[in-house]
């Protein structure tokens, strides 16, 4: 059996060897991280965005690269998931997007701060994270059993995607995850419930039509409202 001095050598020697291994890997990591993270894309705007992220302890609720707290969504791919227009609107007034739901502090960011924060998150979204976050492996199987194809004569207008309408509403069995708790209805059969004029009135200013609605007034031009109304009312044809 080991003597005490042999045990001591095991402890000190082992610690020395593994510390040296760790330091060598650290040096190598320093060499490889700039390419893997596209460090050249860290503009002053991205750096400012990171400071906003830290100055408000965003990690105290959210996760980024899977690190942080578990009270609010993972944000690594948020720019890809929601799109910039949605994020701009959300950061102006977080509670308006999810009324009567889990709350986020309104930090009263100005436009520049919002752009910086989004630039930082966009940079994060492009870092090679060795496959994280994984695409949900069961999502495709579930969609295959529930999805109905969208029947439409008109193409989906760009503003429909830019506003991430399918974040809250489902269309053709896809999307709508964020709207489940808010009671956001599917859009496939909206033409049966509202005529075109009603859709225009609703999309222009939902709280005007129904004051207790959870859908916020979106920053849409009249042309964009018309495009959306055209598209939605075409679904029945």
């Amino acid at each position, binding site marked *: 059996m080991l003597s005490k001095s042999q*045990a001591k050598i095991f402890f000190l020697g082992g610690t020395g060897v593994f510390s040296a291994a760790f330091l060598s890997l650290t040096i190598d990591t320093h060499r490889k991280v700039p390419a893997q993270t596209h460090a050249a894309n860290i503009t002053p705007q991205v750096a400012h965005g990171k400071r906003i992220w830290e100055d408000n302890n965003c990690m105290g609720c959210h996760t980024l690269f899977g690190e942080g707290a578990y009270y609010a969504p993972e944000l690594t791919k948020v720019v890809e998931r929601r799109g910039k227009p949605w994020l701009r609107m959300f950061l102006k007034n977080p509670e308006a997007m999810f009324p009567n739901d889990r709350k986020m502090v309104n930090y009263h960011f100005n436009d520049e701060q919002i752009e910086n924060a989004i630039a930082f998150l966009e940079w994060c979204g492009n870092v090679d994270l060795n496959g994280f976050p994984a695409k949900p492996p069961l999502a495709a199987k579930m969609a295959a059993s529930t999805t109905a194809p969208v029947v439409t004569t008109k193409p989906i207008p760009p503003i429909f995607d830019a506003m991430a309408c399918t974040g809250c509403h489902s269309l053709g069995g896809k999307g709508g995850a964020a709207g489940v*708790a808010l009671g956001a209805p599917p859009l496939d059969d909206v033409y049966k419930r509202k005529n075109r004029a009603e859709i225009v009135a609703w999309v222009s200013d939902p709280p005007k039509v129904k004051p207790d609605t959870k859908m916020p007034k979106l920053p849409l031009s009249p042309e964009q409202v018309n495009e959306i109304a055209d598209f939605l009312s075409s679904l029945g044809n």
Partner: protein
Amino acid sequence: MKYASQKVAYWFFASAMVLFALQLVYGFIMGFAHTGWDGLHQWIPFNTARAVHTNLLVCWLLLGFMGAAYFIIPEEADCELWSVKLAYIQLIAFLAVGVTAIVCYHLNIWEGRKFLEIPRPLDYLVVIDVLAFLLNIGMTLMRGKRYTTTSLVLYMGLFFAALLYLPGMITFDNQTMDSFYRWWVVHLWVEGVWELIMGGILCYLLIKLTGVDRELVEKWLYIIVGLTFLSGILGTGHHYYYIGTPRYWLIVGGIFSALEPLAFLGMAIYALAMAKKGGRKHPNKIALTWSLGCAIMSCVGAGFLGIAHTIPQVNMFTHGTLVTAMHGHMAFWGAYAMIVLAIMAYAMPLLTGRKLWDSPLATWAFWTSNIGMSAMTGAFAVAGITQVTLERRMGMDFLAVQHEIEMHFIGLLLGASLFTVGIVLFMWNFIRHGLPSDEAIGADIEGTPTPAQT
């Protein structure tokens, strides 16, 4: 106790108890927020509650470690503490920094990096404070009549904990490198040098409580802390799977994380074997119960619940979910909270001269808190696994999933209430001991099996 200067440990322990109580309050605020009862959001938003909850934990554990060192080192080195006055100054300064940090969090002032939230100027004060502490303990050891392995391991643990605080202060514009060095502090503390501190304290307690020969206990201490570093240093890799660092960390982290439970398993077997060998002759049975409980719960919480989600293929889905909270709660409780409570349970009768070790309160405190923590871990596990299935595997929206798991947080709050009852009982027993007294000096001879064995 043997030396009058050991009395300073009492004030470190008492401060730790106060911060612990406050930590529980903020834990409840978060638990309620998760069930939808977020009435305090306007004044204490979740990120504030979270930072206060984790920082208070770190603060009270560090106070507990310092108190333990101030109690153990004079006795191990066989001389009075170098400067009692410096110890008091250092305690007050530490508390002042801690309170300032907590106030800052309520005013949205911080550095905003998980676990290292304290504003930068306070970082420097922490460093100075810890240096004062290390100086005090170091000078005591230098002046002492004997060097023991126990005091050496404890001092090494404390010294490296101070040293490893520094990488956390390097700033990067690259989030990946920022995170990389943040883990040098967080991981290498809790899965490295803090285990040295825990091992040192546990070793001291086993020598005192079981009466087994010091040479034997200390030999095994070397092997166990050796295993800790062997697995823990490269085990840091499990934090580098998915943050933008090279892919080889998946292999390095995966292999060495899988070895990490061995150190904890070794610790548990070691504690149980020594207790069996020594025949538990010491009358302070509750201190031995806490020591063995610590070894076992850390093995379960830190060892096995840790490996349950450090396998890279599993971690791909559990990374950044409540599964981490499940592991974190029992790991910190088992490994670090319990060792601090164990040294308190051992030291309080010696500091105050009141032998309240066979009080039923003390036994109830142990069982209630441990059952409560196990229930909390269970609630986190169910919530975490449900979150992983619905959000990460099926692709449901984050908030929709959170509503689905609200009920598990009611379970969590029930477990937390039971846990709190246990901690309140422990604190009540702590208060019943009264203040440290000079009459207790020399009282430790009583109760130890034979002087020769210590």
